[in-house]
């Protein structure tokens, strides 16, 4: 079971209590009526879908109910850290980053194991 640290409950809890809530740190335009359709699409629809380190909002819906932000590795699925909503984008501690990269190399991807098999 994947454990997620809730910054409000100050505890690791089961992933079952959480919901994913999209990419984090997307700023709403100051004057949304003034922007072009392209700019609106960029703000509203288009997401980076990065491979590797990504910042996401999560909600502890079956616990304290609060939204918070998480830095997560989309390759290994490991949570690098979580912090309270409203805080600016936090740098990932170096040790966590190295641990994630080490884990990444050991993840079996389809390309590595099955890619050449016909």
């Amino acid at each position, binding site marked *: 079971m994947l454990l997620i640290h809730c910054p409000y409950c100050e*505890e690791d809890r*089961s992933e*079952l*209590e959480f919901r994913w809530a999209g990419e984090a740190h997307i700023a709403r335009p100051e004057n949304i009526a003034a922007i072009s359709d392209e700019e609106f699409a960029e703000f509203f629809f288009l997401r980076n879908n990065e491979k590797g380190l990504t910042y996401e909002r999560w909600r502890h819906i*079956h*616990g*304290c*109910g609060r939204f918070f932000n998480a830095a997560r590795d989309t390759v290994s699925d490991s949570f690098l850290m979580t912090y309270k909503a409203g805080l600016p984008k936090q740098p990932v501690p170096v040790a966590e980053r190295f641990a994630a990269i080490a884990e990444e190399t050991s993840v079996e991807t389809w390309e590595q194991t099955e890619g050449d098999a016909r």
Partner: protein
Amino acid sequence: MAELATRSLPLSGVHGGSAIVRLEPAAPATRISLRVRAEDVPALSSALGVDLPMKPKTSVYANGRTALWLGPDEWLVIDEGESGLMTAAANSGALHSATDVSHRNTAILVSGAGAASAINGGCPQDLSLDAFPVGACSRTLFGKVEVVLLRTAEDAFRMEVWRSFSDYAFGLLSEGARDAAL
């Protein structure tokens, strides 16, 4: 003959458990779901006669009322009697939101040596005494339903569950109780 409406609990009359777990429905209680900003907590605490806990996963019992921390600005206050929790909150004079959820919730009392393992049959939380001591409380999942757990003694829990889910919760607890006794 006077025709009187009799109110019955959703789980009235049921009983269950196993050799080491006892399951019983709790008596009717008054409950409010309370949202208060940090600066108004002292006013609400004195109005309700119970100090609202500020630490995650803790509860405070005083004057027949239990205040359970659910979130940074959210509490569940349970009164075992018929007293006016809503009136008390309204008389606090501070900004808050109180909703009477007395009949939304019902509670199941789980006790006995196997109580924690019966609940862990459907709940992912660590219920060891170190992680979940007496008085600890938390909103969490039990199987498919959301519940609020409160540890009332080393081997006793109160599980608050929405009334329409109470049959499911009781059934799953009965399974857990049977498994705990194996």
